[in-house]
């Protein structure tokens, strides 16, 4: 555990040292966050609020869409972070040293991809803090603690999905594009930007059970002060466990295959 923590710190440190102009980058992130929020705020003035007033997820379009937009942005970045780390380490020639270390490639990739999305995590939290207080008029309470706990577990769950995608790119790098399309489709079908009640009932089941749809629905329920806080937290933990076990299985399978094919080092 201590060793894993040490390597986590070392990778984050390395990432920060490698990042060129980190202050400018952070300023850009914060500025783009403010611009997005302003756009959603004014769009809110144009939208018929009656569609949202009865929803548990929020009282107006602003609160509804901000949560969706933030999370979908984060989902898109984080689910592809492990493949992006893998591509970078392969292309730069440093993956071979990962393979010689005492750590499993799975662990190193998981940690590296977490370090990769540090900027996104900070940006998402910044968005959320503003959105929560502007859109939901939230008070500081235990509910807010559960919301943040939920977000942390959701981030780790997305990391598991990211590992599954990277495992596929270990076998064939072209699968990276397929995974990118899966992410885009998942976001479009998730109801991040529109309530799923507007989707025709016959095809709604296609939308409802996607991992991203589920996590975003739970987040909205939690933020709006759902009575079922424990149930939602338990569900996200179970989803995390399931995706983690599945990710490990897929990763080891694909790692073995690419070692056999002899393409593990090449992108």
């Amino acid at each position: 555990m201590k060793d894993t923590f040490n390597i986590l710190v070392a990778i984050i440190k390395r990432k920060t040292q490698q990042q060129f102009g980190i202050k400018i980058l952070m300023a850009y992130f914060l500025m783009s966050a403010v611009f997005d929020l302003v756009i959603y705020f004014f769009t809110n003035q144009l939208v018929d609020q009656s569609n949202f007033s009865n929803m548990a997820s929020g009282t107006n379009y602003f609160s509804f869409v901000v949560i969706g937009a933030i999370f979908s942005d984060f989902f898109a970045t984080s689910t592809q972070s492990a493949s992006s780390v893998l591509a970078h380490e392969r292309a730069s020639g440093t993956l071979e040293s990962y393979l010689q270390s005492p750590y499993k490639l799975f662990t190193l990739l998981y940690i590296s991809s977490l370090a990769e999305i540090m900027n996104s995590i900070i940006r998402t939290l910044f968005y959320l803090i503003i959105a929560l207080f502007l859109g939901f008029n939230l008070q500081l309470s235990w509910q807010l603690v559960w919301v943040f706990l939920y977000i942390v577990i959701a981030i780790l769950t997305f990391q598991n999905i990211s590992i599954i995608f990277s495992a596929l790119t270990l076998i064939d790098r072209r699968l990276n594009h397929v995974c990118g399309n899966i992410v885009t489709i998942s976001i479009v079908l998730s109801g991040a930007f529109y309530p799923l009640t507007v989707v025709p009932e016959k095809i709604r089941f296609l939308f409802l059970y996607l991992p991203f749809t589920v996590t975003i629905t739970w987040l909205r329920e939690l933020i709006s002060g759902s009575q079922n806080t424990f149930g939602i937290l338990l569900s996200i933990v179970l989803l995390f466990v399931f995706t983690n076990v599945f990710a490990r299985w897929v990763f080891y399978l694909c790692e073995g295959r690419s070692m056999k094919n002899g393409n593990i080092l090449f992108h």
Partner: protein
Amino acid sequence: MLTLTNLHKSFAKELPVLDSVNWSFTPGETTGIFGLNGSGKTTLLRLLAHTYLPGRGKITYHGEKLDKIKNYTSRVAFINSETRNLYRRLTGAQNLAFFKTLFKLETADSQIKEWLEELGILGAMSKQISTYSMGMKQKLWVVIQLLRDSEILLLDEFTDHLDQQSINFFKNKIYQHQNFQQKTVVYASRRIDFTKEFAGRVLTLKDGQLV
């Protein structure tokens, strides 16, 4: 003892790179593998490093299959002539610090400093790797790998960018190591003179066979 039994390796549906290779590498001995470009030297070494898996046959270390040995990869140092092993945007010192954590190196800083000084790169440790020459990068990489004090040393054309003084320095570090008798060293090269200079026994890799 690192043993290859009926080892076979091919990529995709191409002709086999290695075909029915049998050999045992003995600890305390340096085995040289000479072969022309594309003869399969690097592939063989990557199989020994457990980076690749064989198509058929098996590799055992002290009688156990490599995938059954816990932390086998951390017992192996694979040193190639690639100069891309280090992070270009980091300084030499930052790279060293990162790889010390990655490989769990416990070597004292004073010893590392001594080595770097002898190799003439101590003064460049605060500079970015992108400003290093090929030889400087190679020296730093070989230092990191040798500090791991691995049981198995796989040297793949690692002298390519090094001057004679540095080659002698590394040779001394390898052969005069107090535990050399427990170490298995395999040196692969496309140059027969280098191979003979480094290794006690020289094998030739030709048409996928070790002779």
